[in-house]
Protein backbone atom coordinates (compact mmCIF):
# COMPACT_ATOMS: atom_id res chain seq x y z
CA UNK A 1 0.00 0.00 0.00
CA UNK A 2 2.69 2.47 1.01
CA UNK A 3 4.89 1.31 -1.78
CA UNK A 4 2.07 1.82 -4.23
CA UNK A 5 1.39 5.28 -2.91
CA UNK A 6 5.06 6.13 -3.05
CA UNK A 7 5.34 4.97 -6.63
CA UNK A 8 2.30 6.90 -7.67
CA UNK A 9 3.57 10.03 -6.00
CA UNK A 10 6.89 9.75 -7.76
CA UNK A 11 5.18 9.14 -11.10
CA UNK A 12 2.88 12.07 -10.53
CA UNK A 13 5.77 14.32 -9.65
CA UNK A 14 7.36 13.30 -12.94
CA UNK A 15 4.14 14.06 -14.80
CA UNK A 16 3.97 17.41 -13.07
CA UNK A 17 7.54 18.21 -14.05
CA UNK A 18 6.88 17.28 -17.67
CA UNK A 19 3.63 19.20 -17.65
CA UNK A 20 5.34 22.27 -16.27
CA UNK A 21 7.51 22.31 -19.35
CA UNK A 22 4.62 21.52 -21.69
CA UNK A 23 2.56 24.33 -20.23
CA UNK A 24 5.52 26.68 -20.28
CA UNK A 25 6.14 25.89 -23.92
CA UNK A 26 2.46 26.13 -24.71
CA UNK A 27 2.21 29.57 -23.22
CA UNK A 28 5.41 30.47 -24.99
CA UNK A 29 3.88 29.26 -28.24
CA UNK A 30 0.87 31.47 -27.83
CA UNK A 31 1.13 34.38 -30.16
CA UNK A 32 1.71 37.77 -28.68
CA UNK A 33 3.78 38.46 -25.60
CA UNK A 34 3.11 41.23 -23.06
CA UNK A 35 5.26 43.63 -25.03
CA UNK A 36 3.29 42.99 -28.21
CA UNK A 37 0.21 44.12 -26.35
CA UNK A 38 1.99 47.27 -25.20
CA UNK A 39 3.09 47.97 -28.75
CA UNK A 40 -0.47 47.83 -29.96
CA UNK A 41 -1.47 50.34 -27.30
CA UNK A 42 1.26 52.91 -27.91
CA UNK A 43 2.13 54.16 -31.38
CA UNK A 44 5.19 56.05 -30.18
CA UNK A 45 7.27 53.04 -29.20
CA UNK A 46 10.53 52.74 -31.11
CA UNK A 47 12.29 49.47 -31.74
CA UNK A 48 14.84 50.40 -29.08
CA UNK A 49 12.01 50.86 -26.57
CA UNK A 50 10.62 47.50 -27.54
CA UNK A 51 13.93 45.78 -27.04
CA UNK A 52 14.28 47.41 -23.67
CA UNK A 53 10.78 46.39 -22.64
CA UNK A 54 11.43 42.81 -23.72
CA UNK A 55 14.52 42.85 -21.58
CA UNK A 56 12.62 44.23 -18.60
CA UNK A 57 10.11 41.42 -18.87
CA UNK A 58 12.77 38.83 -19.68
CA UNK A 59 11.19 37.99 -23.02
CA UNK A 60 14.29 38.36 -25.11
CA UNK A 61 15.64 34.89 -24.32
CA UNK A 62 14.72 31.53 -25.80
CA UNK A 63 11.95 29.49 -24.19
CA UNK A 64 14.23 26.78 -22.84
CA UNK A 65 16.45 29.28 -21.09
CA UNK A 66 13.47 31.09 -19.66
CA UNK A 67 12.05 27.79 -18.47
CA UNK A 68 15.37 26.91 -16.86
CA UNK A 69 15.48 30.22 -15.05
CA UNK A 70 11.90 29.89 -13.97
CA UNK A 71 12.37 26.34 -12.73
CA UNK A 72 15.51 27.22 -10.83
CA UNK A 73 13.78 30.11 -9.09
CA UNK A 74 10.64 28.06 -8.51
CA UNK A 75 12.58 25.28 -6.84
CA UNK A 76 13.88 27.88 -4.45
CA UNK A 77 10.36 28.92 -3.71
CA UNK A 78 10.32 32.00 -5.93
CA UNK A 79 7.48 31.75 -8.41
CA UNK A 80 7.90 35.28 -9.60
CA UNK A 81 5.45 38.09 -9.93
CA UNK A 82 2.18 38.25 -11.73
CA UNK A 83 2.65 40.66 -14.59
CA UNK A 84 -0.95 41.81 -14.54
CA UNK A 85 -1.35 42.33 -10.82
CA UNK A 86 2.26 43.17 -10.00
CA UNK A 87 2.07 40.95 -6.93
CA UNK A 88 3.84 37.70 -6.10
CA UNK A 89 2.01 34.91 -7.88
CA UNK A 90 0.78 33.19 -4.76
CA UNK A 91 -0.50 36.39 -3.26
CA UNK A 92 -2.82 36.62 -6.25
CA UNK A 93 -3.60 32.93 -6.38
CA UNK A 94 -4.44 32.17 -2.81
CA UNK A 95 -7.59 34.28 -2.48
CA UNK A 96 -8.88 32.91 -5.78
CA UNK A 97 -8.02 29.42 -4.66
CA UNK A 98 -9.95 29.96 -1.45
CA UNK A 99 -13.00 31.15 -3.36
CA UNK A 100 -12.81 28.22 -5.73
CA UNK A 101 -12.43 25.66 -2.98
CA UNK A 102 -15.44 27.09 -1.16
CA UNK A 103 -17.53 27.01 -4.30
CA UNK A 104 -16.39 23.59 -5.43
CA UNK A 105 -16.52 22.10 -1.97
CA UNK A 106 -20.13 23.07 -1.54
CA UNK A 107 -21.29 22.14 -4.99
CA UNK A 108 -19.43 18.85 -5.12
CA UNK A 109 -20.76 17.80 -1.75
CA UNK A 110 -24.28 18.74 -2.75
CA UNK A 111 -23.97 17.05 -6.11
CA UNK A 112 -22.75 13.82 -4.51
CA UNK A 113 -25.32 13.94 -1.74
CA UNK A 114 -28.06 14.29 -4.29
CA UNK A 115 -26.64 12.39 -7.22
CA UNK A 116 -25.46 9.16 -5.62
CA UNK A 117 -28.62 8.37 -3.65
CA UNK A 118 -30.75 9.29 -6.64
CA UNK A 119 -28.70 7.03 -8.88
CA UNK A 120 -29.04 4.11 -6.50
CA UNK A 121 -32.68 4.79 -5.95
CA UNK A 122 -33.30 4.68 -9.69
CA UNK A 123 -31.17 1.60 -10.27
CA UNK A 124 -33.02 -0.44 -7.71
CA UNK A 125 -36.19 -0.24 -9.69
CA UNK A 126 -35.08 0.18 -13.27
CA UNK A 127 -37.58 1.08 -15.97
CA UNK A 128 -40.10 2.20 -13.42
CA UNK A 129 -41.71 5.60 -13.46
CA UNK A 130 -39.30 6.85 -10.83
CA UNK A 131 -36.35 5.62 -12.83
CA UNK A 132 -37.56 7.58 -15.84
CA UNK A 133 -38.16 10.62 -13.69
CA UNK A 134 -34.67 10.45 -12.22
CA UNK A 135 -33.15 9.98 -15.66
CA UNK A 136 -35.04 12.90 -17.03
CA UNK A 137 -33.89 15.05 -14.13
CA UNK A 138 -30.31 13.90 -14.57
CA UNK A 139 -30.34 14.49 -18.31
CA UNK A 140 -31.91 17.87 -17.86
CA UNK A 141 -29.07 18.85 -15.53
CA UNK A 142 -26.48 17.59 -17.98
CA UNK A 143 -28.07 19.19 -20.98
CA UNK A 144 -28.46 22.77 -19.85
CA UNK A 145 -25.66 25.02 -21.07
CA UNK A 146 -24.02 26.45 -17.96
CA UNK A 147 -24.20 30.14 -18.83
CA UNK A 148 -27.82 29.70 -19.65
CA UNK A 149 -28.56 28.10 -16.34
CA UNK A 150 -26.59 30.80 -14.54
CA UNK A 151 -28.47 33.62 -16.19
CA UNK A 152 -31.76 31.91 -15.55
CA UNK A 153 -30.99 31.55 -11.86
CA UNK A 154 -30.01 35.21 -11.61
CA UNK A 155 -33.16 36.31 -13.38
CA UNK A 156 -35.42 34.22 -11.21
CA UNK A 157 -33.81 34.63 -7.81
CA UNK A 158 -32.20 38.04 -8.04
CA UNK A 159 -34.28 40.03 -10.50
CA UNK A 160 -37.79 38.62 -10.18
CA UNK A 161 -37.85 37.34 -6.63
CA UNK A 162 -35.11 39.62 -5.36
CA UNK A 163 -34.13 37.26 -2.56
CA UNK A 164 -30.54 36.49 -3.52
CA UNK A 165 -27.71 38.70 -4.74
CA UNK A 166 -27.03 38.48 -8.46
CA UNK A 167 -23.32 38.07 -8.12
CA UNK A 168 -20.13 38.97 -6.38
CA UNK A 169 -18.21 37.80 -3.37
CA UNK A 170 -19.87 39.58 -0.54
CA UNK A 171 -21.31 42.97 0.32
CA UNK A 172 -18.49 45.47 -0.26
CA UNK A 173 -17.63 47.75 2.58
CA UNK A 174 -19.75 45.88 5.09
CA UNK A 175 -18.11 43.01 6.81
CA UNK A 176 -21.08 40.71 6.92
CA UNK A 177 -19.05 37.70 8.04
CA UNK A 178 -19.54 34.19 6.73
CA UNK A 179 -23.31 34.47 6.44
CA UNK A 180 -22.91 37.32 3.98
CA UNK A 181 -20.35 35.40 1.94
CA UNK A 182 -22.47 32.27 2.01
CA UNK A 183 -25.50 34.05 0.67
CA UNK A 184 -23.47 35.14 -2.34
CA UNK A 185 -22.41 31.54 -2.84
CA UNK A 186 -25.91 30.14 -3.09
CA UNK A 187 -26.58 30.84 -6.76
CA UNK A 188 -23.18 29.92 -8.21
CA UNK A 189 -23.08 26.77 -6.08
CA UNK A 190 -26.61 25.84 -7.12
CA UNK A 191 -25.66 26.40 -10.75
CA UNK A 192 -22.59 24.17 -10.53
CA UNK A 193 -24.46 21.56 -8.54
CA UNK A 194 -27.27 21.32 -11.05
CA UNK A 195 -24.73 20.99 -13.83
CA UNK A 196 -22.81 18.14 -12.26
CA UNK A 197 -25.48 16.25 -10.34
CA UNK A 198 -26.85 14.70 -13.53
CA UNK A 199 -23.55 13.11 -14.39
CA UNK A 200 -23.13 11.66 -10.92
CA UNK A 201 -26.65 10.29 -10.93
CA UNK A 202 -26.22 8.69 -14.32
CA UNK A 203 -22.93 7.06 -13.55
CA UNK A 204 -24.12 5.83 -10.19
CA UNK A 205 -27.24 4.38 -11.73
CA UNK A 206 -25.41 2.69 -14.59
CA UNK A 207 -22.81 1.28 -12.30
CA UNK A 208 -25.33 0.04 -9.75
CA UNK A 209 -27.42 -1.60 -12.45
CA UNK A 210 -24.35 -3.39 -13.71
CA UNK A 211 -23.38 -4.52 -10.24
CA UNK A 212 -26.83 -5.76 -9.36
CA UNK A 213 -26.54 -8.19 -12.26
CA UNK A 214 -23.48 -9.86 -10.89
CA UNK A 215 -23.65 -13.42 -9.69
CA UNK A 216 -22.68 -12.68 -6.15
CA UNK A 217 -25.66 -10.39 -5.83
CA UNK A 218 -27.87 -13.19 -7.04
CA UNK A 219 -26.28 -15.39 -4.44
CA UNK A 220 -26.90 -12.81 -1.81
CA UNK A 221 -30.52 -12.52 -2.86
CA UNK A 222 -30.84 -16.29 -2.91
CA UNK A 223 -29.65 -16.32 0.66
CA UNK A 224 -32.74 -14.34 1.49
CA UNK A 225 -31.11 -11.05 2.39
CA UNK A 226 -33.35 -8.02 2.27
CA UNK A 227 -33.08 -5.93 -0.86
CA UNK A 228 -31.79 -3.10 1.24
CA UNK A 229 -28.94 -5.15 2.59
CA UNK A 230 -28.16 -6.48 -0.83
CA UNK A 231 -27.96 -3.03 -2.34
CA UNK A 232 -26.28 -1.10 0.43
CA UNK A 233 -24.34 -3.91 2.03
CA UNK A 234 -23.08 -5.82 -0.97
CA UNK A 235 -23.53 -3.96 -4.23
CA UNK A 236 -22.72 -0.39 -3.25
CA UNK A 237 -19.06 -1.05 -2.64
CA UNK A 238 -18.47 -2.39 -6.12
CA UNK A 239 -20.79 0.01 -7.80
CA UNK A 240 -18.84 2.94 -6.44
CA UNK A 241 -15.66 1.94 -8.28
CA UNK A 242 -16.34 3.56 -11.64
CA UNK A 243 -18.08 6.46 -9.97
CA UNK A 244 -14.96 7.43 -8.07
CA UNK A 245 -13.11 7.83 -11.36
CA UNK A 246 -15.68 10.21 -12.66
CA UNK A 247 -15.75 12.25 -9.48
CA UNK A 248 -11.98 12.49 -9.35
CA UNK A 249 -11.84 13.56 -12.99
CA UNK A 250 -14.65 16.01 -12.51
CA UNK A 251 -12.91 17.74 -9.69
CA UNK A 252 -9.84 18.47 -11.73
CA UNK A 253 -11.98 19.68 -14.57
CA UNK A 254 -14.22 21.83 -12.43
CA UNK A 255 -11.19 23.35 -10.79
CA UNK A 256 -10.47 25.49 -13.80
CA UNK A 257 -13.64 24.70 -15.68
CA UNK A 258 -15.98 26.68 -13.48
CA UNK A 259 -14.95 29.64 -15.64
CA UNK A 260 -18.39 30.23 -17.10
CA UNK A 261 -20.14 30.06 -13.76
CA UNK A 262 -17.55 32.36 -12.25
CA UNK A 263 -17.91 34.82 -15.10
CA UNK A 264 -21.69 34.96 -14.96
CA UNK A 265 -21.79 35.31 -11.19
CA UNK A 266 -18.83 37.71 -11.07
CA UNK A 267 -17.18 35.29 -8.69
CA UNK A 268 -13.39 35.66 -8.86
CA UNK A 269 -12.17 32.10 -8.60
CA UNK A 270 -9.43 30.10 -10.27
CA UNK A 271 -11.25 29.69 -13.57
CA UNK A 272 -11.59 33.39 -14.23
CA UNK A 273 -8.13 34.13 -12.91
CA UNK A 274 -6.55 31.50 -15.12
CA UNK A 275 -8.50 32.77 -18.11
CA UNK A 276 -7.47 36.36 -17.46
CA UNK A 277 -3.88 35.34 -16.91
CA UNK A 278 -3.74 33.39 -20.15
CA UNK A 279 -5.52 36.08 -22.13
CA UNK A 280 -3.52 38.86 -20.51
CA UNK A 281 -0.14 37.27 -21.16
CA UNK A 282 0.55 36.89 -17.49
CA UNK A 283 3.18 34.22 -17.89
CA UNK A 284 4.02 33.43 -14.28
CA UNK A 285 0.47 33.55 -13.04
CA UNK A 286 -0.95 31.46 -15.87
CA UNK A 287 1.79 28.91 -15.47
CA UNK A 288 1.34 28.43 -11.75
CA UNK A 289 -2.46 28.49 -11.99
CA UNK A 290 -2.42 25.83 -14.70
CA UNK A 291 0.11 23.75 -12.83
CA UNK A 292 -2.05 23.94 -9.77
CA UNK A 293 -4.98 22.63 -11.78
CA UNK A 294 -2.73 19.85 -13.02
CA UNK A 295 -1.70 19.03 -9.49
CA UNK A 296 -5.29 18.83 -8.33
CA UNK A 297 -6.13 16.48 -11.19
CA UNK A 298 -3.17 14.27 -10.42
CA UNK A 299 -4.08 14.08 -6.76
CA UNK A 300 -7.63 13.30 -7.78
CA UNK A 301 -6.33 10.43 -9.88
CA UNK A 302 -4.27 9.00 -7.06
CA UNK A 303 -7.25 9.20 -4.75
CA UNK A 304 -9.36 7.46 -7.37
CA UNK A 305 -6.82 4.66 -7.67
CA UNK A 306 -6.65 4.30 -3.91
CA UNK A 307 -10.41 4.14 -3.81
CA UNK A 308 -10.41 1.39 -6.48
CA UNK A 309 -8.06 -0.72 -4.51
CA UNK A 310 -9.98 -0.17 -1.34
CA UNK A 311 -13.32 -0.91 -2.93
CA UNK A 312 -12.34 -3.78 -5.17
CA UNK A 313 -10.30 -6.42 -3.39
CA UNK A 314 -9.60 -8.09 -6.72
CA UNK A 315 -7.29 -5.27 -7.65
CA UNK A 316 -4.27 -5.45 -5.42
CA UNK A 317 -1.97 -2.51 -5.13
CA UNK A 318 0.85 -4.62 -6.41
CA UNK A 319 -1.34 -6.01 -9.16
CA UNK A 320 -1.05 -2.77 -11.03
CA UNK A 321 2.63 -2.84 -11.41
CA UNK A 322 3.31 -6.42 -12.26
Amino acid at each position, binding site marked *: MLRFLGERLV*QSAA*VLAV*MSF*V*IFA*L*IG*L*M*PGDPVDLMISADPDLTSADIEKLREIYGLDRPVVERYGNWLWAALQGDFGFSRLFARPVFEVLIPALGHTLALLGISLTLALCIGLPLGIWAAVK*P*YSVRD*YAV*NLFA*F*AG*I*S*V*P*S*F*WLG*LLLIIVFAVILGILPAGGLGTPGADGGWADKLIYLVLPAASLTLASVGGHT*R*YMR*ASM*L*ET*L*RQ*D*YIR*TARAKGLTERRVVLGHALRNAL*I*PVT*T*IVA*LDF*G*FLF*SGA*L*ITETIFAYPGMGKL*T*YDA*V*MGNDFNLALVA*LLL*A*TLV*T*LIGNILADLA*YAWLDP*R*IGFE*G*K*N*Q
Partner: protein
Amino acid sequence: MTAAIIKPATPLSLVTRRFLRHRLAVASAALLAVLAALSLAAPLFETWLALDANTVDLFNRFAPPSTDHPLGTDEAGRDVLLRLLYGGRVSLFVGISAALTAAILGTTIGLLSGYFGGALDAIFMRVTDGVIALPLLPLLIVLAALDLEKLGFSAAAAQSEGASLYRIVVIVALVGWTTVARLVRATALSLRERQFVLAAKAQGASAARIMAVHILPNLASPIIVATTLSVGNVILLESVLSFLGLGIQPPLPSWGNLLTNAQELIWDAPALAVYPGLAIFVTVIAFNFVGDGLQDALDPRSLERGRR
Protein backbone atom coordinates in the same frame (compact mmCIF):
# COMPACT_ATOMS: atom_id res chain seq x y z
CA MET B 1 -19.58 -19.62 -7.59
CA THR B 2 -20.62 -20.61 -11.03
CA ALA B 3 -18.32 -19.57 -13.79
CA ALA B 4 -19.88 -16.90 -15.90
CA ILE B 5 -20.28 -17.86 -19.48
CA ILE B 6 -19.72 -15.00 -21.74
CA LYS B 7 -21.66 -15.17 -24.92
CA PRO B 8 -20.21 -14.01 -28.18
CA ALA B 9 -21.62 -10.74 -29.49
CA THR B 10 -25.38 -10.82 -29.53
CA PRO B 11 -26.95 -11.12 -32.99
CA LEU B 12 -27.99 -7.82 -34.47
CA SER B 13 -31.63 -8.78 -34.82
CA LEU B 14 -31.81 -9.53 -31.12
CA VAL B 15 -30.19 -6.22 -30.28
CA THR B 16 -32.67 -4.43 -32.47
CA ARG B 17 -35.57 -6.23 -30.90
CA ARG B 18 -34.38 -5.38 -27.43
CA PHE B 19 -33.71 -1.81 -28.34
CA LEU B 20 -37.22 -1.43 -29.67
CA ARG B 21 -38.60 -2.36 -26.29
CA HIS B 22 -37.04 0.70 -24.74
CA ARG B 23 -39.72 3.16 -25.68
CA LEU B 24 -37.99 6.37 -24.66
CA ALA B 25 -34.86 5.32 -26.48
CA VAL B 26 -36.85 4.58 -29.61
CA ALA B 27 -38.62 7.89 -29.36
CA SER B 28 -35.27 9.61 -28.86
CA ALA B 29 -33.70 7.82 -31.78
CA ALA B 30 -36.63 8.82 -33.93
CA LEU B 31 -36.30 12.39 -32.75
CA LEU B 32 -32.59 12.45 -33.51
CA ALA B 33 -33.26 10.96 -36.92
CA VAL B 34 -35.79 13.69 -37.60
CA LEU B 35 -33.41 16.39 -36.36
CA ALA B 36 -30.60 15.00 -38.47
CA ALA B 37 -32.84 14.71 -41.52
CA LEU B 38 -34.10 18.25 -41.06
CA SER B 39 -30.59 19.54 -40.67
CA LEU B 40 -29.40 17.70 -43.73
CA ALA B 41 -32.36 19.06 -45.64
CA ALA B 42 -31.52 22.65 -44.68
CA PRO B 43 -30.64 23.61 -48.28
CA LEU B 44 -34.03 22.28 -49.41
CA PHE B 45 -35.75 24.51 -46.89
CA GLU B 46 -33.62 27.34 -48.16
CA THR B 47 -34.92 26.81 -51.68
CA TRP B 48 -38.43 26.23 -50.49
CA LEU B 49 -38.56 29.40 -48.42
CA ALA B 50 -36.66 31.23 -51.16
CA LEU B 51 -34.26 32.58 -48.56
CA ASP B 52 -30.58 32.43 -47.83
CA ALA B 53 -29.40 31.54 -44.36
CA ASN B 54 -26.65 34.14 -44.38
CA THR B 55 -28.29 37.02 -46.15
CA VAL B 56 -28.68 39.93 -43.83
CA ASP B 57 -31.69 42.19 -43.88
CA LEU B 58 -31.14 45.20 -41.67
CA PHE B 59 -34.66 46.41 -42.15
CA ASN B 60 -36.22 43.24 -40.91
CA ARG B 61 -34.55 42.57 -37.59
CA PHE B 62 -36.30 40.65 -34.83
CA ALA B 63 -39.32 40.05 -37.04
CA PRO B 64 -42.05 37.92 -35.48
CA PRO B 65 -42.92 34.56 -37.06
CA SER B 66 -44.69 34.89 -40.38
CA THR B 67 -45.28 32.79 -43.47
CA ASP B 68 -42.02 34.12 -44.93
CA HIS B 69 -40.09 33.42 -41.76
CA PRO B 70 -41.76 30.59 -39.85
CA LEU B 71 -39.76 31.32 -36.71
CA GLY B 72 -39.10 34.99 -37.33
CA THR B 73 -35.75 36.65 -37.89
CA ASP B 74 -32.68 37.26 -35.77
CA GLU B 75 -30.63 40.32 -34.87
CA ALA B 76 -29.36 40.61 -38.43
CA GLY B 77 -32.70 39.93 -40.07
CA ARG B 78 -31.81 36.37 -41.02
CA ASP B 79 -34.30 33.55 -40.96
CA VAL B 80 -34.19 31.84 -37.58
CA LEU B 81 -35.48 28.50 -38.84
CA LEU B 82 -32.77 28.23 -41.47
CA ARG B 83 -30.07 29.25 -39.04
CA LEU B 84 -31.30 26.62 -36.62
CA LEU B 85 -31.26 23.91 -39.26
CA TYR B 86 -27.79 24.83 -40.44
CA GLY B 87 -26.73 25.13 -36.82
CA GLY B 88 -27.99 21.60 -36.27
CA ARG B 89 -25.80 20.34 -39.07
CA VAL B 90 -22.74 21.86 -37.50
CA SER B 91 -23.52 20.89 -33.92
CA LEU B 92 -24.46 17.32 -34.76
CA PHE B 93 -21.47 16.89 -37.00
CA VAL B 94 -19.09 18.25 -34.40
CA GLY B 95 -20.70 16.26 -31.59
CA ILE B 96 -20.81 12.92 -33.33
CA SER B 97 -17.52 13.02 -35.14
CA ALA B 98 -15.56 14.30 -32.18
CA ALA B 99 -17.17 11.84 -29.76
CA LEU B 100 -16.59 8.88 -32.06
CA THR B 101 -12.98 9.77 -32.72
CA ALA B 102 -12.38 10.25 -29.04
CA ALA B 103 -14.11 6.95 -28.19
CA ILE B 104 -12.03 4.97 -30.67
CA LEU B 105 -8.83 6.52 -29.42
CA GLY B 106 -9.82 6.07 -25.80
CA THR B 107 -10.95 2.47 -26.17
CA THR B 108 -7.74 1.44 -27.87
CA ILE B 109 -5.54 3.05 -25.28
CA GLY B 110 -7.65 1.95 -22.31
CA LEU B 111 -7.92 -1.63 -23.52
CA LEU B 112 -4.21 -2.07 -24.12
CA SER B 113 -3.40 -0.38 -20.88
CA GLY B 114 -5.86 -2.33 -18.77
CA TYR B 115 -5.20 -5.70 -20.33
CA PHE B 116 -1.44 -5.70 -20.47
CA GLY B 117 -0.84 -3.64 -17.37
CA GLY B 118 2.73 -3.20 -16.21
CA ALA B 119 4.99 -0.67 -17.81
CA LEU B 120 2.66 -0.09 -20.76
CA ASP B 121 -0.15 0.70 -18.37
CA ALA B 122 2.02 3.00 -16.33
CA ILE B 123 3.14 4.93 -19.42
CA PHE B 124 -0.33 5.12 -20.95
CA MET B 125 -1.93 6.19 -17.75
CA ARG B 126 0.65 8.87 -17.07
CA VAL B 127 0.10 10.15 -20.60
CA THR B 128 -3.60 10.11 -19.86
CA ASP B 129 -3.03 12.01 -16.65
CA GLY B 130 -1.00 14.48 -18.59
CA VAL B 131 -3.66 14.94 -21.24
CA ILE B 132 -6.42 15.24 -18.66
CA ALA B 133 -4.36 17.82 -16.90
CA LEU B 134 -3.52 19.60 -20.15
CA PRO B 135 -4.96 23.06 -19.92
CA LEU B 136 -7.57 23.40 -22.64
CA LEU B 137 -7.52 27.16 -22.76
CA PRO B 138 -3.97 27.95 -23.89
CA LEU B 139 -4.17 24.94 -26.16
CA LEU B 140 -7.22 26.40 -27.84
CA ILE B 141 -5.60 29.76 -28.24
CA VAL B 142 -2.49 28.24 -29.70
CA LEU B 143 -4.60 26.20 -32.07
CA ALA B 144 -6.68 29.23 -32.98
CA ALA B 145 -3.53 30.84 -34.26
CA LEU B 146 -2.16 27.73 -35.90
CA ASP B 147 -1.97 27.65 -39.61
CA LEU B 148 -4.17 24.74 -40.63
CA GLU B 149 -2.26 24.43 -43.87
CA LYS B 150 0.81 23.50 -41.90
CA LEU B 151 -1.15 20.67 -40.34
CA GLY B 152 -1.73 19.08 -43.70
CA PHE B 153 -5.15 20.47 -44.45
CA SER B 154 -5.56 21.64 -48.01
CA ALA B 155 -5.47 25.37 -48.65
CA ALA B 156 -9.13 25.30 -49.60
CA ALA B 157 -10.11 23.59 -46.35
CA ALA B 158 -7.97 25.91 -44.26
CA GLN B 159 -9.55 28.99 -45.80
CA SER B 160 -13.04 27.64 -45.95
CA GLU B 161 -15.63 28.82 -43.50
CA GLY B 162 -15.65 25.34 -41.99
CA ALA B 163 -12.06 25.61 -40.81
CA SER B 164 -13.15 26.44 -37.27
CA LEU B 165 -15.29 23.32 -37.38
CA TYR B 166 -12.40 20.93 -38.12
CA ARG B 167 -10.31 22.67 -35.53
CA ILE B 168 -12.88 21.96 -32.87
CA VAL B 169 -13.33 18.32 -33.85
CA VAL B 170 -9.58 17.78 -33.72
CA ILE B 171 -9.14 19.56 -30.41
CA VAL B 172 -12.06 17.82 -28.73
CA ALA B 173 -10.96 14.41 -29.95
CA LEU B 174 -7.41 15.04 -28.82
CA VAL B 175 -8.37 15.97 -25.31
CA GLY B 176 -11.61 14.02 -24.98
CA TRP B 177 -10.42 10.43 -25.27
CA THR B 178 -9.22 10.25 -21.70
CA THR B 179 -12.57 9.64 -20.04
CA VAL B 180 -13.26 6.60 -22.17
CA ALA B 181 -9.69 5.41 -21.77
CA ARG B 182 -9.88 5.52 -18.00
CA LEU B 183 -13.26 3.85 -17.89
CA VAL B 184 -12.20 1.12 -20.29
CA ARG B 185 -8.99 0.55 -18.44
CA ALA B 186 -10.72 0.30 -15.10
CA THR B 187 -13.16 -2.29 -16.40
CA ALA B 188 -10.53 -4.18 -18.36
CA LEU B 189 -8.39 -4.28 -15.27
CA SER B 190 -11.11 -6.02 -13.33
CA LEU B 191 -12.24 -8.21 -16.25
CA ARG B 192 -8.85 -9.71 -16.89
CA GLU B 193 -8.86 -11.19 -13.42
CA ARG B 194 -12.21 -12.85 -14.03
CA GLN B 195 -12.48 -16.57 -14.38
CA PHE B 196 -13.68 -16.62 -17.95
CA VAL B 197 -10.69 -14.63 -19.06
CA LEU B 198 -8.32 -16.72 -17.03
CA ALA B 199 -9.94 -19.80 -18.50
CA ALA B 200 -9.51 -18.50 -22.03
CA LYS B 201 -5.91 -17.71 -21.26
CA ALA B 202 -5.36 -21.18 -19.93
CA GLN B 203 -6.78 -22.58 -23.16
CA GLY B 204 -4.08 -20.67 -25.00
CA ALA B 205 -6.14 -17.95 -26.63
CA SER B 206 -4.07 -15.08 -28.01
CA ALA B 207 -4.14 -11.71 -26.31
CA ALA B 208 -5.78 -10.12 -29.33
CA ARG B 209 -8.48 -12.76 -29.32
CA ILE B 210 -9.14 -12.42 -25.64
CA MET B 211 -9.41 -8.69 -25.96
CA ALA B 212 -11.66 -8.83 -28.99
CA VAL B 213 -13.89 -11.71 -27.98
CA HIS B 214 -13.94 -11.74 -24.22
CA ILE B 215 -13.21 -8.27 -23.03
CA LEU B 216 -14.47 -5.86 -25.68
CA PRO B 217 -18.08 -7.05 -25.64
CA ASN B 218 -18.12 -6.57 -21.90
CA LEU B 219 -16.78 -3.11 -22.36
CA ALA B 220 -19.48 -2.13 -24.81
CA SER B 221 -21.85 -0.77 -22.25
CA PRO B 222 -19.47 1.61 -20.45
CA ILE B 223 -18.10 2.78 -23.78
CA ILE B 224 -21.55 3.40 -25.13
CA VAL B 225 -22.69 5.23 -22.04
CA ALA B 226 -19.59 7.37 -22.10
CA THR B 227 -19.75 8.05 -25.82
CA THR B 228 -23.40 8.98 -25.91
CA LEU B 229 -22.88 11.23 -22.93
CA SER B 230 -19.91 12.74 -24.65
CA VAL B 231 -21.81 13.52 -27.86
CA GLY B 232 -23.95 15.70 -25.67
CA ASN B 233 -20.94 17.02 -23.83
CA VAL B 234 -19.20 18.00 -27.03
CA ILE B 235 -22.29 19.87 -28.19
CA LEU B 236 -22.28 21.63 -24.83
CA LEU B 237 -18.54 22.22 -24.95
CA GLU B 238 -18.95 23.84 -28.32
CA SER B 239 -21.41 26.27 -26.78
CA VAL B 240 -18.94 27.06 -24.02
CA LEU B 241 -16.22 27.65 -26.57
CA SER B 242 -18.56 29.98 -28.42
CA PHE B 243 -19.12 31.81 -25.16
CA LEU B 244 -15.37 32.38 -24.97
CA GLY B 245 -15.13 33.36 -28.62
CA LEU B 246 -13.17 30.23 -29.43
CA GLY B 247 -15.96 28.26 -31.06
CA ILE B 248 -17.47 28.02 -34.50
CA GLN B 249 -16.94 31.26 -36.39
CA PRO B 250 -19.75 33.28 -37.89
CA PRO B 251 -21.50 33.34 -40.23
CA LEU B 252 -21.52 29.55 -39.91
CA PRO B 253 -24.19 28.92 -37.31
CA SER B 254 -24.03 26.29 -34.63
CA TRP B 255 -26.49 25.82 -31.82
CA GLY B 256 -23.75 26.87 -29.47
CA ASN B 257 -23.00 30.17 -31.12
CA LEU B 258 -26.67 30.87 -31.77
CA LEU B 259 -27.26 30.46 -28.06
CA THR B 260 -24.28 32.56 -27.10
CA ASN B 261 -25.34 35.31 -29.45
CA ALA B 262 -28.75 35.28 -27.88
CA GLN B 263 -27.59 35.75 -24.32
CA GLU B 264 -27.50 39.52 -24.64
CA LEU B 265 -30.91 39.42 -26.25
CA ILE B 266 -32.40 37.34 -23.49
CA TRP B 267 -34.68 40.15 -22.37
CA ASP B 268 -35.70 41.35 -25.81
CA ALA B 269 -35.95 38.28 -27.97
CA PRO B 270 -36.02 35.31 -25.62
CA ALA B 271 -37.18 33.11 -28.48
CA LEU B 272 -33.76 33.47 -30.12
CA ALA B 273 -32.25 31.83 -27.08
CA VAL B 274 -35.04 29.36 -26.45
CA TYR B 275 -34.79 27.63 -29.84
CA PRO B 276 -31.09 26.77 -29.85
CA GLY B 277 -31.19 26.14 -26.11
CA LEU B 278 -34.07 23.76 -26.59
CA ALA B 279 -32.35 22.13 -29.55
CA ILE B 280 -29.24 21.49 -27.48
CA PHE B 281 -31.28 20.33 -24.52
CA VAL B 282 -33.44 17.93 -26.50
CA THR B 283 -30.55 16.58 -28.52
CA VAL B 284 -28.37 15.93 -25.52
CA ILE B 285 -31.23 14.24 -23.68
CA ALA B 286 -32.06 12.16 -26.73
CA PHE B 287 -28.49 10.99 -27.11
CA ASN B 288 -28.53 9.95 -23.51
CA PHE B 289 -31.72 7.94 -23.85
CA VAL B 290 -30.45 6.29 -26.99
CA GLY B 291 -27.28 5.39 -25.15
CA ASP B 292 -29.39 3.97 -22.41
CA GLY B 293 -31.43 1.88 -24.80
CA LEU B 294 -28.36 0.65 -26.59
CA GLN B 295 -26.79 -0.34 -23.35
CA ASP B 296 -29.74 -2.51 -22.46
CA ALA B 297 -29.99 -3.91 -25.94
CA LEU B 298 -26.34 -4.82 -26.13
CA ASP B 299 -26.26 -6.38 -22.73
CA PRO B 300 -27.20 -10.06 -22.83
CA ARG B 301 -28.72 -9.97 -19.37
CA SER B 302 -30.86 -6.93 -19.65
CA LEU B 303 -34.01 -8.73 -20.77
CA GLU B 304 -34.59 -10.63 -17.59
CA ARG B 305 -34.06 -7.42 -15.68
CA GLY B 306 -36.39 -5.58 -17.92
CA ARG B 307 -39.16 -7.95 -16.93
CA ARG B 308 -38.36 -8.12 -13.27
